[in-house]
């Protein structure tokens, strides 16, 4: 499968990355080069093979159902959470208007 300019524009839009027309033109052959190369996986017979989900057998743990069990990842740290925000106002993240 190969991609054209319209496909790359669609992918970039899905990935929320703004690209100019010139960048689109440059990306098409690059992405096609990579896709053509990974295409060879299609020749592998994977009949009956289960897709890998974990490299080392492990079971997911459940955390104890306790409020603020780990203070680092718990609550009551609003100011620390907001400290790196480009725009923070009144204890919230600031974003451009989203409701008309």
């Amino acid at each position, binding site marked *: 499968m190969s991609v054209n300019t319209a496909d790359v524009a669609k992918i970039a839009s899905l990935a*929320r990355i703004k690209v100019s027309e010139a960048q689109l033109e440059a*990306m098409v052959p690059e*992405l096609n080069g990579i896709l053509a190369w990974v295409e060879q996986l299609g020749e592998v017979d994977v009949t009956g093979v289960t897709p890998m989900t974990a490299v080392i057998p492990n079971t997911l743990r459940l955390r104890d159902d306790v409020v603020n069990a780990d203070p680092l990842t718990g609550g009551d740290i609003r100011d*620390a959470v907001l400290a790196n925000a480009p725009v923070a106002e009144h204890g919230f993240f600031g974003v451009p208007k989203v409701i008309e």
Partner: protein
Amino acid sequence: MRNNRSERMTDLTELGVAALRDGVASGAFTATEVASAFNAAVEAAQGALNAFIVTTPDAALAAAGKVDAARAAGQPLGKMAGVPIGMKDLFATKGVQTTAASKILEGFVPPYESTVSQKLWDAGAGMLGKLNLDQFAMGSSNETSGFGNVISPWRKGDDTTPLAPGGSSGGSSAAVAARIAPAATGTDTGGSIRQPAAFTGISGIKPTYGRCSRWGVVAFASSLDQAGPMARDVRDCAIMLEAMAGFDPKDSTSLDLAVPAWEAGLNADMRGKKVGIPREYRVDGLDADVAKSWEDGIAWLKDAGAEIVDISLPHTKYALPTYYIIAPAEASSNLARYDGVRYGLRDLPDGANLQEMYAATRAAGFGDEVKRRILIGTYVLSAGFYDAYYTQAQKVRALIAQDFAKAFETVDVILTPTAPSAAFALGQKSTDPVEMYLNDVFSVPASLAGLPAMSVPAGLSRDGLPLGLHVIGRPLDEQGVLNASLALEQRAQFSAKPGKWW
């Protein structure tokens, strides 16, 4: 007096982790003297090598002061007491800018500390600074950093052409090779500890997936990312890995297992051990120097008492394309968090709405290689293509892991070259992404299978540049990997180091 003192300070930077730790413990020198010596070496090299994104001399001195005070008070000292290290700028460090070498995180100051870095500080290590890397750890030459290339301290004789220190842990490898840090943290997704170690004549181990916590490490590909140490020799790596590893409830894939005493368990006697040589790694057109160093490694392990066994890993040729579907897929998901809202860069063009702000921010903040991988990842995960690419890749990945499992029924470790060539010049491979990806041909299969693997220096190429040998082990058998690597190290007698031109 001044001359003697300055010579002594230079001598300190020639020491590795074990020697520094033991010297501080015995009182041969103080941790503060060690930190000062390395701080000075870092500062002197920074303009030429660009190994660090930020330096933190005060942090190194503060940690050293604590160690000296603890020793004076007769308190027990940690495994890394008095050893200043470089911290790859992928680990969140509380109060110190953490960027993943991307402009999208410039100015981000974490309010928390990664588990691995915290363990190192708890063990008495100090921080010299945050090391440069390929942006979001995506690259094999350190040329994708948003903060400039790292220049390898190695040169081809009198030729001053800047060489790649490898990647993505290129700041780490350059700093350790240049003797401006005795050791450094690295992370390895497809070879990012081992390939730079090989390029710069140092040692580095990627432990079994799950040994080191990923909490607080900027995520690239979560099913592959694993932290590990980079240092001058095998013993130093064993010491530092003990300090970094261990169960962490904050990482859902962390393995709930005790940390073995790897340093105490070091043993280079390979009698009774079987070493597998995978025939599929003898790729067409393998560099003659690399082929020769592989033969040397085989002879050295035989000399150490091992039996050499020819093995087959039939799906090897599919490892790289598998990796270049899975890693970008995971990256495209992980990097969705950089949206200009919660931290990092925001680009808000006049009149832009929220969606336009996301797109503008990500366009301005991510480098070309990062964008390329996000787009590939988005494509292979998109409706209609998911099964053909991503599911197929996960199936092939299972076959690659099965190849290794089958081989390890017969052999104890596997020996291969680390990289297909010695270090190349900066700019030499940056035009074709696929050509750059091929650098990871020998390191990626072990990553896909989550196996422990290590690179140790084997010798020099005809151009006088380091070459690495690569030892892959069974899951959780870091000891077997370290021991075979030690057997290689003792026989390689690698003592070359870059001339100090900076």
